[in-house]
């Protein structure tokens, strides 16, 4: 009985996101932005994980799929690099994680979005997620687990975590792509019904981050997946915050409210 009363003590703690904006989601620096500047070796050398590169036109670019959010570039060159607040860091294509975006990306992403929408239609109004660790540092698991705490409470959105791959619609993969997880990953995917949606959760899962190159990992999980199973959603962050993960799941399901999707947020 005391626990029942205790459960009522602090009222509703749950965020209204994504229906309403959330103050914490918006104060969180979830990515690094870049202003228009010529690409020079001094800028590229700032990054410990090789995220700073150049566009076709020789301008400096940031690959958020490699960025570990250490903030070194922002501290050293605030005239070029800046923090971008907001946790909505998930994208439907690997290329869309690179800023500034390429012009032709938009059309390609629309195509991807259409194909994904076709697939997730079968899920109906509830979706079950199987998490799999393919060589994470452990922090990602905390952030994934946080999604069921009362603050995020993803059950309210019809999102559930499931132990059995047989019941799962979405595979949420964390970690840098450890070779030792190739077989367990393959077995898990084989056990899942089709259609299946795969989310690469975190910079490590997208590119290996600081862990790659290494003899025991594959530079992210993309090359670990069996042929014919692509990554559908990429969510950057080291680790991605719970809001970023929630954004990724909602993006996969096409459940982001209009106007608050990734297109509106591109810097």
């Amino acid at each position, binding site marked *: 009985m005391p626990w029942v009363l205790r459960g009522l003590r602090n009222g509703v703690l749950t965020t209204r996101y994504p229906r309403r904006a959330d103050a914490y989601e918006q104060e969180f620096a979830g990515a690094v932005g870049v202003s228009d500047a010529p690409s020079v070796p001094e800028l590229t050398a700032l990054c*410990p994980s090789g995220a700073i590169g150049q566009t076709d036109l020789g301008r400096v670019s940031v690959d958020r799929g490699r960025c570990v959010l250490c903030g070194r570039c922002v501290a050293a060159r605030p005239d070029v690099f800046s923090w971008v607040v907001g946790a909505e860091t998930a994208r439907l294509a690997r290329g869309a994680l690179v800023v500034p975006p390429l012009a032709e990306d938009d059309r390609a992403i629309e195509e991807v979005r259409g194909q994904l929408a076709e697939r997730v239609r079968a899920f109906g109004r509830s979706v079950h997620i199987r998490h799999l660790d393919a060589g994470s540092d452990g922090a990602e698991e905390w952030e994934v687990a*946080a999604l069921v705490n009362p603050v995020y409470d993803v059950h309210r959105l019809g999102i559930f975590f499931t132990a059995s791959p047989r019941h799962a619609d979405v595979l949420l993969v964390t970690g840098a792509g450890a070779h030792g997880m190739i077989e367990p990953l393959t077995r898990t995917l084989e056990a899942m019904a089709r259609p299946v949606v795969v989310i690469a959760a975190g910079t490590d899962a997208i590119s290996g981050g600081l862990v790659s190159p290494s003899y025991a990992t594959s530079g992210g999980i993309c090359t670990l997946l069996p042929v014919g199973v692509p990554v559908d959603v990429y969510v950057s962050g080291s680790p991605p915050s719970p809001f970023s993960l929630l954004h990724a799941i909602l993006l996969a399901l096409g459940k982001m409210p209009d106007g608050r999707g990734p297109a509106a947020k591109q810097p």
Partner: protein
Amino acid sequence: MTAESVDQAVTADVAAWRAAVLRAVERGGRFAGLFGTDVRGDVRLTALVAAADIQPYDVMLPAAMTEYPALTPDLPAAAWYERELHDLFGVHPAGHPRLDPLVLPLQTGAVDRPRPGSPSPVSGLTPSDRTVPSLVVGAGVFTIPHGPVRSGVFESIEYLVETPGENVLHPQIRVHAKHRGLEKRFEGMTTDDAVLLAERVEGIASVAHALAFAHAVERVAGVEPPPAAAAIRVLLAELERVANHLDVALRLAEAAALAVAMSRLGWHKERVLRLQSRLSGSRFARGIVVPGGVSRLPGIAAADIRVALDRLEPAIAADERELMLTSSFLDRLRTTGVIGPSLAARHGALGPIGRASGVGEDARVTRPYDGYGILDQPTPPVLVEGDAMARLRVRWTEVHAAFTLARAAIDVLVSADEVLRRDVGRPDGRGIGWAEAPQGEVLYAVDLIDGVLTRCKPRSASFHNLVLFHDTFDTEILTDFPFIEASFGLSVAGVVL
């Protein structure tokens, strides 16, 4: 010298080294680790013994000599270290009672080993399950594989549980699935880059790992962090401890299916992580600790941090009181997963696991670093019951001590001058650094040439402690498993680098 006399000289060296290590432990030292370093094809073995300082004992094994007399028969705590050494270097500890692969099972006859310390790159290595024994023998005994993909949101690890149906006879612990090859990855990095990787060795203890690494570099460079930096380090490290201990309580409540308690503890943990992100910009306080100090001041004012701490502590304490009065919960913890004081002392059990079993060592007290030397530290709790209950009680006491320390650190911070970092330059040499993570003592042994790492060996408390999991099953049954595992509070990422 002839080849034969060289062999004899080396054999004598190894025997002397082995005797010295055993003597140091007999005299009250605590065995704290064993690792190898490839030095131009030879293997330098380094045993660490903790007394007043962490003392390294070295011996060189020439390339031609692939065998040495194992420490494990006389020093059981070395068992996993020698298995790891065998996996990474192919060196054979002769007389080891069970030299199964641990972190990197390769096909039988594999010649390529990572050999950390050697400048040559290693191409892709894939662990092979097939070289890990899985046979069990006994009337009616079978195995249940838990993992590597667990039922829930867990890190990948496989416990192959040997059972006749109800009791757990023995859990085989297989950690290799998520081996990331981090020791090699450190090599060639500058200290500024490497501290970022250290934060990702065991992500839930990012601050402690960054601190232990920074301390190692600072010792080589002969630099002390300025007082303001030391205070910020203490503040972040103690908040990390609170979040970790709440996570353990949360997982225990989950195992007992106490839904409201889970929600409450999950909320508190979220609040701690949010405070951490307001202080540092990262929910795991990454990017703040750097060799020589810290990279920036907390993102919110001291007064606001105090307000946040003053709100958090009583809220946590209220739920702690309720939890520790919930008999259906406590019944599952009492006498579950006991580690006796003699085993804990013999193994040198670290952190809350040690402190719940009569081993009172805490790096913050015995070998204070950063601000801990000048802060008024509460005495670390030491219990002797050694069960899951004692481990949880130790953690609660540490949570309150963490708040006291965090407040004291803020007092130091507001009165300190504004220097946040001293230059460590490009140091040369070897150094060992330590920090007390929420899981226990973390060690980093580094070799630096002109500010670049040639070898970096992280030794987490998770690695040292996890082997004790074998010994916690006496009359325990399958349903006790999640309680014992949660009560350990370890991270697999820190076990298998």
